[in-house]
């Protein structure tokens, strides 16, 4: 069932188009790296700031980097999906790929929890520049999870 779906994906017109144009794969990969710089770069800066790095930079402005993170995320969902469709059977049966997806989902839930803690906390820790310990835990987890996403992503080619 799963295998049939993967094989079907590989034979969609999109997959054929990527296979037919020589530069499609390298271009998508490059796009994925640029998206990664925005996404992981932005998130790491926010995480490190919450953890106390560069205290002079306003927490509010750093969290204001989120639009860049979203742009990076959208670039990577798009390029990542296209790369997956192109090599569905290979990727879908790759353990590193599934580790990456699991880390990605947990990182997403963690980011959601972080976001809720900004919106729902009884006091405004962003304005007070004083992240509560719980939020620092989210930031630490976030850093570790994104490191796992990148690591698993790189290892896909070797497993």
């Amino acid at each position, binding site marked *: 069932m799963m295998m049939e779906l993967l094989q079907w994906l590989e034979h969609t017109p999109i997959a054929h188009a990527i296979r037919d144009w020589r530069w499609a794969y390298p271009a998508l990969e490059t796009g994925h790296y640029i998206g990664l710089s925005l996404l992981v*770069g932005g998130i790491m800066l926010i995480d490190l700031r919450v953890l106390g790095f560069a205290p002079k930079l306003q927490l509010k402005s750093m969290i204001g980097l989120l639009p860049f993170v979203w742009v990076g995320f959208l670039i990577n969902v798009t390029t990542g999906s296209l790369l997956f469709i192109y090599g569905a059977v290979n990727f879908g049966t790759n353990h590193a790929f599934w580790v990456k997806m699991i880390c990605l989902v947990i990182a997403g839930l963690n980011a959601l929890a972080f976001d809720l803690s900004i919106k729902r906390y009884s006091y405004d820790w962003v304005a007070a520049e004083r992240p509560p310990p719980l939020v620092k835990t989210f930031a630490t987890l976030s850093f570790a999870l994104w490191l796992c996403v990148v690591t698993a992503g790189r290892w896909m080619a070797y497993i």
Partner: protein
Amino acid sequence: MGFLEWLQGTWVATTVAESLWGYPTFETMHTMGMALLIGSLGLINLRVLGFKPGLKIFDTRALLPLAWIGFTLNAISGSALFVSDAVMFFNSYTFRLKIVLIILGGINAALLSRKIFSEPAQGGAAVVPTTGMKWIAGTSLVFWFGAIICGRLIAYTP
């Protein structure tokens, strides 16, 4: 050419090239370093270009240590990856272009730091980015993203 072949034969090079973990580990390090370096320098450049006006330009110098950590990670991992296949990398035009772009990006970063992080800029009046500073910041972004593009394309181009 003798030197490159010697490099490729060193213990470091053969370990990176032949061990199961060597190449992917340094590649991962290179990717994380890239995110740190481009993330922090990118933010400084975007701030000079007018984004995030809430951040004081002078205060963004707090990001420089992060940029240096990213750069150091990438210099180490990049060197390890280079020696593992020194002849191929040295002969690749895309690799050479990448190095040129990194050097240009570095010069730009040094120029911009001198302008926006110099002592007189501290305290008193806030730094107002001039057209010159904005040009340096804009071209910087082009150099660094160009370096990422070249890096990815080494595997596909002569």
